């Protein structure tokens, strides 16, 4: 400690202040963290929660339109005339459509999520948003100013949620009132887009490119941001508003379009009175403290959390130099085939597409021997060490993913080859747990657990999961138990292995009795191993297995923006990592507090 720090500490003590914040203060701060919405609250919600994005943006639309009145008043009488018509409206109905998409990608695929809603906005009552999907009512969401309450009803799930409106939420709603943020709009410049034709109407538009015109807080960095407003030159009323942005460093663009405006219409107050069907359940998610707070509570849990970060699953070979296999041709398959443009917007579409592609691949067993010969000729695999074989397997898997994995008719030789070389590594060292993990990853890369069918009972189960995959995890389980008997403290990787086994025993092998026994073992190990965070779900799993039912509980979390593209990696074990770029984004659930999830 230098003189400056000593003087500082002594000054604090002279004032009766403990230089290290006392525990009681830290406890109060933790309570404050629990009750405080995180940083950039409105922006974060605009970008991350589709419903909130629409609700907040609805107010923005009004504000911007009114703002144009003042902007226009100084330079262009057309805008003044337009907005003179709408500035006193305190109600509005509009249709909203939003699209989140990262594509089309260079490989021709585009993953997109689409949403359509009708928004009823009232300065007096609040917001009511009704969303439909595929023509059917999906949800109704209410921000009820007079009742100080927000209500969300999800019809397909038959769930509802009531949440009191916090004072700052009410304040935020009021702050987003058009008249309050007009001044903000005035500070920003726009450019004229001129006249054009839209849906048969002559329209005139402007564009703003500064996101700071739209929120009280400084906007987070965007790689691109634009807001466009179009009016019908004949009626001088707004017909189209479009906001589109690409967050800094993100591949996913968000676009929302508002149209079908009805300004100043009388809104029936009953619209703002939620009617919750009697058979709907209240959504209690979030009340489970074990799930809400993942911060370690015991010394063993702290060690477990630290170990999870220090030794990620499948991370044992991260130090290896990977061979370049990008020029490697296998099974005579030409990878330079034209790429078709495909737009996929749901898990069903993604899985259906993958199933159709994979049905065109030859079975692994049919090409296994030929692949082995080619790999010996081209990579000399018979002479490679275990590490070199694993490195080749990782590299081959990456090549498979680079060729769009299960979306491609020509990628399979690389995933099959990865399986071949990691099988060779496993044969050389069958007791090496990390090598077995690599083999499981290689197999899962090109083998999904079941085909997709709306009616799950019609899905075809892949027998490799009930067979070889479960056997591999069972063998690891026996090894782990043996190591523990010799003093080994189980780690996150051990938990992943045994948890995978439990799921495979239940969902794939349907051996619920053994699944329950292994689950009990995990529960019993929890206090010393530190995986206490998972005990609640493990106990539920055990009960389910004892009743003869399967039960699924995951291991990793993905960012909310990961879907729907993330579905391409589904239908695999929970341990599955996929391409390295994806694996780096995965967050073990018990570390969710580290990212505020």
């Amino acid at each position, binding site marked *: 400690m230098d003189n400056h720090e000593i003087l*500082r500490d002594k000054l604090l003590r002279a*004032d009766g*202040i403990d230089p290290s914040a006392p525990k009681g203060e830290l406890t109060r*701060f*933790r309570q404050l963290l629990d009750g405080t919405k995180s940083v950039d609250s409105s922006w974060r919600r605009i970008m991350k929660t589709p419903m909130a994005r629409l609700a907040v943006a609805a107010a923005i639309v009004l504000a911007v339109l009114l703002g144009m009145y003042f902007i226009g008043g100084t330079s262009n009488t057309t805008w003044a005339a337009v907005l003179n018509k709408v500035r006193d409206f305190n109600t509005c109905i509009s249709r909203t459509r939003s699209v989140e998409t990262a594509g089309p990608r260079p490989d021709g695929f585009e993953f997109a999520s689409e949403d359509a809603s009708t928004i009823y906005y009232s300065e007096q009552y609040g917001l009511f948003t009704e969303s439909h999907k595929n023509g059917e009512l999906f949800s109704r969401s209410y921000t009820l100013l007079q009742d100080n309450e927000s209500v969300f009803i999800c019809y397909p799930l038959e769930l509802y949620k009531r949440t009191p409106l916090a004072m700052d939420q009410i304040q935020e709603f009021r702050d987003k009132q058009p008249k309050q943020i007009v001044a903000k709009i005035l500070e920003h410049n726009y450019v004229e887009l001129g006249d054009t034709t839209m849906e048969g109407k002559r329209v005139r538009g402007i564009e703003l490119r500064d996101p700071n015109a739209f929120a009280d807080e*400084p906007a987070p960095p965007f790689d691109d941001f634009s807001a466009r407003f179009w009016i019908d030159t004949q009626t001088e009323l707004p017909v189209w508003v479009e906001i589109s942005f690409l967050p800094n460093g993100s591949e996913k663009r968000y676009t929302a379009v508002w149209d079908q405006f009805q300004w100043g219409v009388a809104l029936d107050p009953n619209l703002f009175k939620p009617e919750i069907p009697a058979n709907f359940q209240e959504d209690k998610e979030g009340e489970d403290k074990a799930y809400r707070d993942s911060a370690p509570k015991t010394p063993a849990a702290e060690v477990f959390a630290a170990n999870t970060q220090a030794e990620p699953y499948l991370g044992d070979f991260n130090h290896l130099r990977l061979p370049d296999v990008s020029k490697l041709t296998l099974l005579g398959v030409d990878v330079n085939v034209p790429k078709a443009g495909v737009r996929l917007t749901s898990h069903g579409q993604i899985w259906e597409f993958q199933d159709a592609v994979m049905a065109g691949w030859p079975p692994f067993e049919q090409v296994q021997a030929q692949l082995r010969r080619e790999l010996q000729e081209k990579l000399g695999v018979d002479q490679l060490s275990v590490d070199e074989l694993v490195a080749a397997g990782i590299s081959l898997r990456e090549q498979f993913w680079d060729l769009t994995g299960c979306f491609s008719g020509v990628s399979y030789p690389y995933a099959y080859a990865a399986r071949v070389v990691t099988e060779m590594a496993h044969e050389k060292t069958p007791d090496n747990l990390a090598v077995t993990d690599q083999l499981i990853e290689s197999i899962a890369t090109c083998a999904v657990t079941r085909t997709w069918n709306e009616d799950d009972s019609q899905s075809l189960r892949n027998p490799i999961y009930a067979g070889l995959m479960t056997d591999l995890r069972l063998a690891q389980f026996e090894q782990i138990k043996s190591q523990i008997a010799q003093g080994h403290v189980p780690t996150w990787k051990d938990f992943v292995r045994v948890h995978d086994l439990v799921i495979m025993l239940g969902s794939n092998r349907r051996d619920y009795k053994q699944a329950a026994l292994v689950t009990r073992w995990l529960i019993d190990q929890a206090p010393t191993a530190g995986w206490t965070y998972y005990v609640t779900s493990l106990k539920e799993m055990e009960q389910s297995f004892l009743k003869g039912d399967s039960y699924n509980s995951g291991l990793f979390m993905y960012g909310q923006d990961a879907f729907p593209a993330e579905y391409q990696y589904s239908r695999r074990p929970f341990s599955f990592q996929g391409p390295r770029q994806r694996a780096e984004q995965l967050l073990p659930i018990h570390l969710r507090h580290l990212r*505020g999830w």
Partner: protein
Amino acid sequence: MSSEDQLQVLVGRCRRGERAAFEEIFRQFQPRLRYYIRRLDPGGNHVEDMLQDVWVKVVRRVGSLRDPKAFVAWLYTIARNEVYSKVQAKDPFVGLDDEHLELVTDNHEPVFGADEAARVHGALERLTPAHREILTLCFLEDLSPKQIAEILGIRAGTVRSRIYYAKQSLRKELEKEYG
């Protein structure tokens, strides 16, 4: 890694919403903020409220802090604004006579050692609010004149002269104790 670098990493983690990072920042700065706010609002009854409001703002707004290096100055600026909004006092630190005095460069700037801490603490109370605040910032944080200037809303040159004259005043106050 220097403590400055460590703080930048910590602030970066806060910007990503990491709870543990927020707690570490709180551990480091809560005692110093308490001391600072008490110096700005001596005898005030709002210190706890102000501290809480400062942290609420930090948690909510740290994502909008573009340069993690600016964190310390940013934090004290929030605290300072909080004091003036709560006590509804006007910023008393403008238009001071010493700001217009030329800095005497050939005189030695008084130095205060850790062994004088208790006396320094007592003497701070007897200084003008402007001198008390600037010295408190100097003693609590190793800030550059530019950073202090950002917090106080004055020019960096003024910071240098104000620190010089504040230290002179503090030294005189300490000497008085020896009659």
